[in-house]
């Protein structure tokens, strides 16, 4: 079955991390927080029906299938830890 994947939104809002901290230095963060929140709510509403469809129509993976996903993700995690050590 061919399931159309929705376009993933750029993930950049609502993270009280460095990116938003540097924006905050410029002031105007109140309305930017409101815009961020509205954008996130819009993305959630748009993605909700597609997610429900994908949940219903996705094939079920075996434990071997899931392991083939978990192993590379663990490698990615270790790689990020290495990058954090390097910075």
């Amino acid at each position, binding site marked *: 079955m*061919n*399931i159309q*994947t*929705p*376009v*993933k*939104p*750029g*993930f*950049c*809002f*609502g*993270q*009280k*991390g*460095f*990116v938003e901290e*540097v*924006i905050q*230095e*410029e002031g*105007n963060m109140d309305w*930017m*927080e409101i*815009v*961020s*929140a509205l*954008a*996130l*709510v819009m*993305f*959630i509403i*748009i*993605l*909700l029906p*597609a*997610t429900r469809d*994908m*949940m*219903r*129509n*996705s*094939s*079920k*993976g075996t434990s071997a*299938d899931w392991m*083939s*996903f978990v192993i*590379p*993700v663990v*490698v*990615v*995690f270790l*790689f*990020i830890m290495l*990058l*954090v050590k*390097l*910075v």
Partner: protein
Amino acid sequence: MNQNYSTAAQGSSSAIATNKVLRSTYMLLSLTLLFSGLTAALSMFMNMPPMTYMISVIGGMVIAMFVLPRFANSSAGIGIVFLITGMLGFGLGPILSMYASLPNGGNIITLSLGGTGAIFMGLSAYALATRKDFSFMGGFLMVGFLLVLLAALANIFLQIPAMSLMISAVVIMIMSGFILYDTSRIIHGGETNYVLATIGLYMTIFNIFISLLQILGIMGNDD
């Protein structure tokens, strides 16, 4: 005998079509990444204010979600992909300028770029080499992504830096899954439109890069 020949011919033409989609996707992806780099450099050169980031990203996403699907099957779709990726790159400019002004900012940007490239190429190579069908992950990844969006929404009000770090890490894990899922969809003929395939992969790269910048920015910030 004729039936076998016909089945083999159909299989072969399907494989050729899949390879064509894959080649076109990677070609368009490389060009859009270069174009984003150029618009990011232009935005840095023009010294754009930080709010450019939010405006460009929201504008780019609205075009990607509402306009692109209507033109994805025409040549206008390619122009729209360049418009979206150009806007996203332009939005990154002020953020990159601010990171560059930090004592170890150059190092953070270089590591984030290199790390994103390594993660994308490694996972794509894994999906291409194993030719495994990752379609079973679709629902899981979308639910995970929705939960992360909800957590991000909550963190706008809670404003917990540790939660932000956690969200960025989870985004990278989910986007890693999406690289496997999207690449596997192209290989197995689930995605036949290279314009949509390109924007899907571009967004995973964009999200990994911005999340890696967040993580390395927080961890590398001594203050």
